[in-house]
């Protein structure tokens, strides 16, 4: 299976993910990756931690569907999507997307596409813990707009 998605509490290692995607392959000419981190400011300053919830089963299926859709749009040689859940603190890695292709343009665009779709379609929810209390993060319009750019005309 060239595409792999995982939802896990453990941290991930970008280098290992890239190596596992490219191991033994000579048809890959480009690998792009995106790593998202927990920031210490968001809707409120001084974010101390956040807790990520997901919908087991559906989340993995949605991520796989996003990967499949990227496959249909670009000639890709494999993808890894890893998303962490549970309690995370500022500076922690939260999400990883790795895309392999023969050429850089497809790899860049597909990576961008997967992140934009993941933000608006994959059932994850963030609760932020700050000095002034806990709150569920609300969805951003800018994320929906970013995802809409990829809609076919």
């Amino acid at each position, binding site marked *: 299976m060239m595409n792999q998605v995982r939802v896990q509490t453990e941290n991930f290692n970008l280098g290992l993910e890239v190596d596992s995607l490219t191991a033994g392959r000579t048809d890959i000419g480009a690998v792009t990756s995106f790593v998202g981190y927990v920031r210490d400011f968001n809707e409120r300053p001084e974010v101390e931690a956040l807790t990520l919830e997901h*919908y087991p089963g559906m989340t993995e*299926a949605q991520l796989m569907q996003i990967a499949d859709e990227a496959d249909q749009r670009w000639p890709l040689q494999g993808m890894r999507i890893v998303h962490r859940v549970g309690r995370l603190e500022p500076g922690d890695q939260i999400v990883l997307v790795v895309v392999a292709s023969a050429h850089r343009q497809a790899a860049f665009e597909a990576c961008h596409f997967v992140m934009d779709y*993941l*933000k608006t379609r994959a*059932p*994850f*929810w963030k609760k932020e813990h700050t000095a002034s209390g806990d709150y569920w993060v609300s*969805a951003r319009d800018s994320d929906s707009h970013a995802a809409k750019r990829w809609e076919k005309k």
Partner: protein
Amino acid sequence: MNKLTHLDARGQARMVDVSEKKVTARTATASARVRMSAATLQHIVEGTHAKGDVLATARIAGIQAAKRTPDLIPLCHPLMLSKVTVDLIPDASLPGVLVEATCKLAGQTGVEMEALTAASVAALTLYDMCKAVDKGMVIEDIKVLEKTGGKSGDWTYESMQHADSKPVVETKTAVGPQLQVRFFAELREALSEDELSVELGEGEETTVAALIEQIKAKGEPWATVLNRPNLLVAVNREMSHPDSVVRFGDEVAFFPPVTGG
């Protein structure tokens, strides 16, 4: 329905998170049967066995085993058992010994594994104590007789036997609510519930919109939560909409807009 909860969405083994489950009084009784020669049984009953009091030893072994269940069964939660009883009943008609183990606790997960382990190990100990005189003993019919408490309610082996003898359709209906509704994130918190069972008979269907109205009719906090703007819904883990059809056995989930990444 009737998913294997010890497997996650990728079919990998996991320990089920029970932290949100309510603490209820739970009991479970399991049984096992050890068949042996009439002479062996006589030794046991008369207490003339070379290794000493077979039944007392097996009883203690069963109680000890119940306490060690999570060490033996990989995905079983460690529990604070409040009571364990192991009864060993000689039965000349087998001939052999019936083992019945009952475990009790107030907790968030069932105790049938503890009862099964107690019954099994008591039976194994009977075998160990008597194997020198009777290698042909048979341990058989290990099963849960009944369990009480917890979300799935009371259950007995006997009632299941009756249900099985009915036509398949009736058995399914007898299982009870056939629409599982789940709530995530802010919704789950506002409701203090992560799921709700809705009655829907086999062959019946409804729509997401009608289901929402049905749940809102329960009053607060359901009405407020399901009136939220931007409420999203998934049917069988696929994004859906108010007109989507919902059938017997489906899983419907409501949640707020997603905020991952």
